[in-house]
């Protein structure tokens, strides 16, 4: 639901970087978004498209890689993909699970010229 502000942060960061390093155009921006980050990729792309008009990023494609929800068992140390709700270690059936991935929002890289 806060895709507009996230899109604005992304655009500000890539434009600053492009300006600092003297690039002429941004072709794409690659993001890694956790499945549970609350971000909807289509909505993010739409917002980014609107905001990036008349900037170095106006034709940039927003590539979104969705990261699975992964957990680590605090008892046996095993790591595994987490299902929708039942957070139990498939190895030792312990339910003390640390979520190690799936809530992040990271700008990984961009392609420029």
């Amino acid at each position, binding site marked *: *639901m*806060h895709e507009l502000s*996230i899109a604005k942060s992304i655009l500000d960061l890539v434009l600053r970087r492009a300006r600092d390093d003297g690039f002429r155009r941004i072709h794409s921006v690659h993001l890694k978004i956790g499945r549970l980050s609350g971000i909807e990729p289509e909505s993010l792309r739409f917002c980014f498209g609107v905001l990036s008009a008349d900037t170095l990023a106006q034709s940039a494609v927003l590539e979104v890689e969705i990261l699975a929800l992964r957990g680590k068992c605090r008892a046996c140390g095993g790591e595994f993909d987490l299902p929708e709700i039942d957070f139990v270690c498939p190895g030792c059936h312990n339910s003390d699970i640390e979520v190690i991935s799936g809530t992040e*929002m*990271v700008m*990984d*890289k961009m*392609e*420029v010229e």
Partner: protein
Amino acid sequence: MDIRLAEDLLEANNRVAAKLKALLSEKGIFALNLLSSPGAGKTTLIEKTLQRMKGAAKTAIIVGDVQTSRDKQRFEDAGLDAVQINTEGGCHLTATMVERALASLDLDALDLLFIENVGNLVCPAGFQLGEDVKVVLLSTTEGDDKPGKYPAAFLHAGALVITKIDLLPWTNFDLESAKKDALRLNSKLKTFEVSSLKGEGMEDWVDWILQRVERKRRNGGLGHGRAL
């Protein structure tokens, strides 16, 4: 040409949140960040909690809403100190908004801070505000399937308060199923069942907060005020 960025989009907020957490620790203030969908009873829970505490903790409330200062007015009518944040369309509070609100409070005179987030079970989950603990509210009129549908809110919470339990006879809310689902996501979750208006279950909840306030107050100024 590929340029590596590796920028965390939440980093800017996390940095401010860490600063606030350090400040609140130094001042010995226990801070709760209350999350729920609109109408789950955050404002009423805070009002009734503070009435029961009868001044046992010097408290301030930061209340976030998209618009109006109705909640601030409600708190002030009840004789409570409140700072209103209007997000003007924003769907969650950010650490910077809380930082601004804290600047208008006398932190040396406080032990306890309630941060009432914007009513929304999705967006506030990812934004730390410098709190000691996130508390998720789930009302019996919303349905017991919410933990499974909105897992992010429950994942990083320290406590779950199931509210409006006085209405249970008139709903199909399954208390055990809601708790079970929430605990399956987060086995460390402390759960409470309350009716803010009728008083049921409020004692345990109030005691839980006061114990943490006391612990944080003792650790205040030592730079290691860990409350949980």
